[in-house]
């Protein structure tokens, strides 16, 4: 499993890979919003959690459609299915690689972008993204598995995945707003529970989706 994890991380990090693309998209959106909204720092600080969370989810989605499709098209997925690894293990490796190359870098970049919004609750934003982005990779993988054989599946993928990610965005942005208002933070544990459940259950659903596509 470690071999597959390293291969996917290496592919994402190299030229033409998805890691830099997601980061650049996240930075571009987060930079454009304050320019469009104007210099009202109070307003910017209020909308920052929502904007940064939505931008992070969309940036992570950019790389998701190729999660299985690239391996499906070049025949690697057949070899992975026949390898000593189960498809569930393959799914775990791919979800982990996706998070390590998109979710984690996005989280690390977020404090810098939060400054653009004059957001004071930077630690809360950082923690909420750290806890919540694994759910984006895990749920996204189910969509990637379902759409792997569809040409231009990348267009259908967000329609499947985004509604399922609504809880992550609600609890994630809610946790930051609660910290901003100095309220007790009930959203963060809920985000953690959602993320944990997604990470535990997704490999099975993802493997089932991949199996369905391979056998048709």
């Amino acid at each position, binding site marked *: 499993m*470690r*071999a*597959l994890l*390293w*291969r996917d991380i*290496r*592919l994402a990090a*190299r*030229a*033409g*890979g998805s890691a830099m693309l997601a980061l650049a998209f996240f930075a571009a959106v987060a930079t454009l919003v304050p320019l469009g909204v104007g210099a009202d720092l109070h307003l910017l600080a209020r909308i920052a959690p929502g904007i940064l969370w939505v931008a992070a989810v969309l940036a992570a989605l950019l790389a998701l459609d190729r999660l299985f499709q690239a*391996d499906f*098209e*070049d*025949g*690697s997925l*057949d*070899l*992975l*299915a*026949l*390898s*000593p*690894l*189960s498809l569930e293990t393959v799914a775990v490796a791919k979800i982990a690689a996706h998070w390590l190359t998109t979710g984690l870098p996005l989280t690390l970049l977020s404090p810098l972008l939060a400054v653009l919004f004059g957001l004071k609750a930077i630690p809360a934003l950082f923690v909420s993204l750290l806890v919540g982005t694994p759910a984006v990779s895990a749920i996204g993988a189910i969509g990637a598995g379902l759409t792997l054989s569809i040409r231009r599946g990348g267009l259908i993928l967000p329609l499947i995945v985004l509604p399922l990610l609504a809880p992550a965005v609600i609890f994630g942005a809610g946790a930051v707003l609660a910290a901003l208002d100095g309220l007790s933070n009930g959203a963060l544990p809920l985000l953690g529970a959602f993320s944990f459940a997604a990470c535990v259950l997704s490999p099975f659903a993802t493997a089932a989706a991949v199996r369905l596509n*391979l*056998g048709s």
Partner: protein
Amino acid sequence: MLAVEDVTGLRGGRVLFRNLSFRVGAGSALSLEGANGTGKTSLLRMLAGLLAPASGAIRFGQVSEAEERGKFVGWLGHHDALKAQMTVAETLAFFARLHGGGETGPAMEAAGLSRLAGLPGQYLSAGQKKRVALARLKLSGRPLWLMDEPLASLDGAGKALAAALVRDHCAGGGIAVIATHEPLGLECERLAL
């Protein structure tokens, strides 16, 4: 021993073959022949357990469950499973690690790839890609080789190499089922679809 019993193959609602039965014993190779669209690739995918037959049973030794059977299969498909950004050496090392270790040097040498070790996949010719696939097949160490058009794009030396690899594999007690349009250059049974 690979045993195929009364297997019927459907593709898109169309019958490709009906009640197909054959056996391939340890140490022998079978060449699948037939015009385009007769179901050679589909049959190979069924043997590998990647595609379910409409009816019938496929057993390798005592194993009949599709996903279990797949763990005995060395696969050489239509596509070369090469990444543009990964070098030949990295590709083969990844595959070797996936299968639990093993030295990639001898397989690379055997496939005539030693000089290409540091070259990324995007610069390889079609024939060179096929050689990487052959090296990967050898590295898999699996007893049942399923090969889909292994000779396509290969030059004369490459074809001889592919035949030699299959001959060695069978001499060691392995089984090879090969879908092909060209003569393989080795002694084997033939099955026309």
